[in-house]
């Protein structure tokens, strides 16, 4: 119970302080007494925060849809020919640094929100795809066989047995993706995508530690909050077997 209440309270408190100018200012003043311009005035932090969350959500949802569908397709009989190739390419492409993918999106589609989303989706599809394939491949053949044997249609086999059985592994892939996306979106500021990286970059350019700190802290808390949330969801959805009837 304690683990359900304390972290959200801490995250909530951190967000309230970091995103609220009136509360943030005194904090920064004590931390950095020598800095003259203490608050990033151009855009309220809360707006950048919202942009950041939007970028992560849009790209993660898109990547999940693409990654899971692709993973499902290449594990069906018609798509099976491509399985090894897709698997190989996807783990190969994962060695590309996310920031490289982000940078390459600019020559391809220009500056702004769009290339960032494209780069985030392109990169974060990979862990989801890999995990979907891994999850599907790990299901014992007898189980899908048995599902077929009791009269499930191929779609029912997919939705009633294969996806639920691999959900845990897929969810872990989504979690990885979301965390990567929070990080890459921070760098998105450099290509003009907005988000919390804007404050950090502005601080670096103007040599203003207070800016850097406020942006970095907010981005860090955001990533940790996402990670915690996914951890909770995982235990909530995938651990009931241990809780029942004991």
């Amino acid at each position: 119970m304690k683990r359900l209440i304390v972290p959200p309270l801490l995250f909530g408190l951190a967000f309230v302080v970091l995103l609220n100018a009136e509360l943030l200012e005194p904090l920064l003043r004590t931390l950095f007494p020598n800095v003259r311009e203490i608050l990033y005035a151009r855009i309220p932090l809360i707006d950048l925060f919202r942009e950041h969350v939007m970028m992560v959500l849009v790209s993660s949802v898109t990547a999940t849809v693409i990654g899971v569908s692709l993973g499902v397709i290449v594990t069906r009989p018609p798509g099976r020919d491509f399985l090894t190739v897709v698997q190989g390419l996807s783990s190969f492409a994962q060695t590309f640094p996310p920031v490289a993918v982000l940078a390459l999106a600019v020559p391809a589609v220009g500056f702004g929100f769009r290339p960032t989303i494209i780069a985030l989706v392109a990169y974060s599809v990979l862990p989801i795809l890999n995990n979907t394939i891994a999850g599907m491949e790990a299901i014992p053949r007898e189980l899908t066989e048995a599902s077929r044997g009791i009269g499930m249609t191929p779609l029912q086999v997919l939705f009633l047995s294969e996806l639920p059985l691999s959900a845990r592994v897929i969810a872990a892939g989504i979690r990885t993706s979301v965390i990567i996306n929070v990080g890459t979106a921070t760098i998105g500021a450099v290509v003009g995508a907005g988000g919390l990286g804007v404050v950090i970059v502005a601080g670096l350019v103007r040599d203003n530690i207070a800016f850097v700190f406020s942006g970095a802290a907010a981005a860090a808390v955001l990533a940790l909050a996402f990670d915690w949330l996914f951890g909770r969801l995982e235990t909530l959805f995938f651990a009931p077997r241990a809780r029942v009837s004991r």
Partner: protein
Amino acid sequence: MLPFVEFKPNRVAEGDPFHLWGLGLTWEPWLLAAIVAAALLLALSGEGPRVRAAKVAVGSALFAATLLVALRAGAILVTEATPFGRVGPISGFWIAALASFLIVEGSLRTASWNPMIKGAIRVLPLAIATGALASGALDSFAMVQEYINRADRFSQELTTHLRLAAVAVMAAVVIGVPLGIVAWKRRLLERPVFTLVNTIQTVPSLALFGLMIAPLALLSRQFPLLRAMGVQGIGAAPALIALTLYALLPIVRNTYTSLSVIPNAVIEAGNGMGMSRRQLLRFVEAPLSVPIILSGIRTSVVQAIGNTTVAALIGAGGLGVFVFQGLGQAAPDLIVMGVIPIILLAVLIDRGMAVLIGLVTPPGLRKDTL
């Protein structure tokens, strides 16, 4: 058909796209078309070792021909009249290159050839490209021009990049391996250790770099000695610390795993035959765990190459300098010039580590790590 290359009269001008047949080339486009046709034909002709070999050959030929056409285009478009002119490969070129990669890689993956031959085939296009670069044939290419203009700076930043990543990973090994062992031996410490390294890895890289700045700036102000050693808020010091922290998780995790996968029975058997502590380490524990720890280091190095790119933002240098300069100046060619070596580094190091891990893995445990 998509435009193949573009021509820019100078660095900042908009490029004019050129199609394959719009370049005034004679036989080269036809060669390319013939190879594409052959590839399509092969794609339809099923499986088998012969088809696979043919696919690899055609794929490699496709790459060579693509490069050749681009080269010839450069020679035609950049003339005496346009001394600042430069060509840049665009969609058509990239798609052809990607297709050649997919064809070759796709058939190599399923082929059961000698790993040495596979490796050679994979390195071949790289060698061709490097050769073309060295011969000066690619000089009219935009990114190559960006490189030529910065050749000294490039090798300097490349060295910085490699040094930062290498030092950080080495430090992470020195800290991470004992940490993993401690987490395994002392059950009480397992949770805190993993919570810590997991949390660090969760924090966005740019944010972690940012968070390093303030305390280091403070320290450097307080202690002149540190400042004299070069520790400041921005630069190499915070970058190294952040990179090291970042590299910890895979190493700690894999060290821990490597210990947990050694079956108790095996240790017992070793003890039972009268092995000393050192012999146990030498004959039992190390052969089983070193490959796993190495694959943790592999993950860490590849990540570090990427994160070092970001470190350029806090003034640590490295190849990220070109990328962010390019982004700042809205100069795509410069961006590509910075990004491609970074990707190549990541990929080559990943492959190299895979080979190394394969070599140190006892034959009985070998899987295809390539």
